[in-house]
């Protein structure tokens, strides 16, 4: 019923607005709303320093959500994010304890461990046809078990290398945090891969209908496995950056990133069923989630309230535009 009216209004709008995904527009509108609400609470909310600080915090989530988005575009999900993040951070810090060679290889080694987790996920999903939700929960449990054995149940004592700290907190360009630059680079690469390469088109194709993609002569299983490996690697890289930010790794550091990363991707208009979604939406989702978290902490909301608001906001926004078509 409302489709015709929306169409009528949209026809009168400039082309770039007409082409925009309503979900992405909604997400950006919510960001503006949150900025407005935040500025009512505190004057400094709209200051450039504060906003850059928010962008820096957002970039950790942004790196992790990029991997999650790839997997969700396939119509799968990666629930091994919490311990992929922790494994990346812990292994990078652990490598740093092995002399100068270890320090030099700390970051690649952390990412490599995340890629390994992702490959196990990918083999399970692509070749063994295990539902991704299940196999990634299982690898998450195994990764947790490995880290508990490795650390003895305590947070490891090794600290982050100077390079990790520089990546997370330094300034290569004045006033622009390195973490933000990294997110921009990863984001640009993702946009390029998704829209300009065969791999990217295949990801969308598999998300729409894997059977059709397979019949078109694509080795869909290899693509799925690579996507999971990339997701694991990006989660671990997010962990490396977080370890650099906090200058050490911690046991449950990844727990706070599972729900936000899924929420950021889905709130950005990427269909949880796969095959549809844009990176711009994910960027909007990440900023939206970070601002929401920031406002809740400015309001000095306790953890319990944060969890509740979080869950309610996600369900509410999904009900607004994330619904599956009615079965007919």
């Amino acid at each position, binding site marked *: 019923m409302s489709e015709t009216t929306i169409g009528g209004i949209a026809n009168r709008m400039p082309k770039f607005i007409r082409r925009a995904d309503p979900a992405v527009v909604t997400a950006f509108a919510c960001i503006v709303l949150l900025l407005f609400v935040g500025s009512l609470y505190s004057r400094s909310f709209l200051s450039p320093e504060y906003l850059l600080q928010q962008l820096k915090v957002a970039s950790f989530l942004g790196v992790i959500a990029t991997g999650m988005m790839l997997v969700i575009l396939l119509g799968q999900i990666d629930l091994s994010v919490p311990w992929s993040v922790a494994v990346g951070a812990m292994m990078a810090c652990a490598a740093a304890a092995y002399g100068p060679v270890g320090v030099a290889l700390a970051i690649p080694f952390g990412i490599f461990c995340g890629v390994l987790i992702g490959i196990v996920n990918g083999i399970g999903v692509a070749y063994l046809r295990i539902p991704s939700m*299940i196999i990634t929960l299982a690898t998450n449990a195994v990764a947790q*078990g490995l880290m508990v*054995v490795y650390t003895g149940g305590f947070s490891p004592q090794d600290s982050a290398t100077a390079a990790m700290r520089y990546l997370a907190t330094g300034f290569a360009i004045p006033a622009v945090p390195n973490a933000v630059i990294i997110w921009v680079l990863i984001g640009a690469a993702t946009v390029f891969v998704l829209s300009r390469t065969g791999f990217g088109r295949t990801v969308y194709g598999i998300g729409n209908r894997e059977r059709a993609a397979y019949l078109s002569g694509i080795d869909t299983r290899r693509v799925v496995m690579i996507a999971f490996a990339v997701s694991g690697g990006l989660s671990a890289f997010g962990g490396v950056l977080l370890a650099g930010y906090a200058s050490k790794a911690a046991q449950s550091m990844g727990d706070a990133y599972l729900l936000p990363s899924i929420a950021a991707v889905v709130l950005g208009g990427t269909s949880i069923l796969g095959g549809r979604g844009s990176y711009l939406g994910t960027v909007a989702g990440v900023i939206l989630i970070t601002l929401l978290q920031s406002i809740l902490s400015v309001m000095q909301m306790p953890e*319990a309230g944060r969890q509740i608001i979080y869950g309610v906001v996600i369900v509410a926004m999904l009900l607004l535009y994330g619904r599956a078509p*009615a079965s007919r």
Partner: protein
Amino acid sequence: MKDWRYWLAEQRGTLLAFGIFIVMFAIYTSNHPAGFTANVVQTASNKGVLLAFVAMAQTLVVITAGIDLSVGMIFTLTNCLASWLVIGSGVETAFGVAAVLGTGLLCGAINGAIVIYGRLQPIVATIATGAVYFGIALLLRPFPGGSVNEGLADALTGRLFGVVPASLVALLAVVLVVWVPFSRSVLGRAAYAAGSSEMAAYMSGVPIRRGKFTAYALAGLLAAIGGLFLTFFTYTGDAAYASGNAYTLFSIAAVVLGGVSLFGGKGSAIGAIFGALAFRTIGDLLFVFDFDPLWQPLFQGVILLIAVSLGAFGLFRVRNRLEWFL
């Protein structure tokens, strides 16, 4: 084929889970320093029953081809609630138990409403509602504490006639009161049909929505019964994020071990119960063999990984490669 063969084919998963459990439990008790005594059985059943309730809850949802990643959080929430309400005189305690179970039912109903009538994906929707339930649990119990009617708690965690663990009897009662009527009712059939093929069920005029909704709501109720028993065992309420998450994870492992298909439409809560008991026993095997407890999370994770990989054997029976892609 004869009737019993059909029955055997249908119950294969359940029987396999039962077999695994018996073997594991035999290994466990024969290596336990105290041996096969009423005490050992009581402790083991008290631990196993908690997971069995949560696994039953997960089964109901998995049968409809959904998943409930909030069962562990409903379990935690009802544990915290019970540590406030299930106390005092007989009437007060009864009221408290009813309130706790009602809360679980409500949580499950909310999940069901969001998934079925809101048409959201069960994974994302239940992760989000799980966050809400955990938040409420944290409001109720920012720090571990509280108390419970100890008379009732001891009665339900002790032994009947000195030999039978009371918790096992309670589990049996719940199966008879909740699972058996549900699985034999029209709504239960509808839940199975929806999981097996939603389109076909819809075309046949099966009440799939009501069936799925009932499954989600009852899952909340069963998780609440689990939370209630946790309070009876520990005498306290504790909003522990890690423990809630672990129960969600283990419930999936138990369901898989119990022969319930994650694609829906196949399996039974009885299988999941034996899956849960087997999973717990496997975890406890480490203790009787004197391993460092630090290895337990890894060991359980590996078992989970193996259990879910076993489902891949179906691939060898696939004749047409297109059947890989559901």
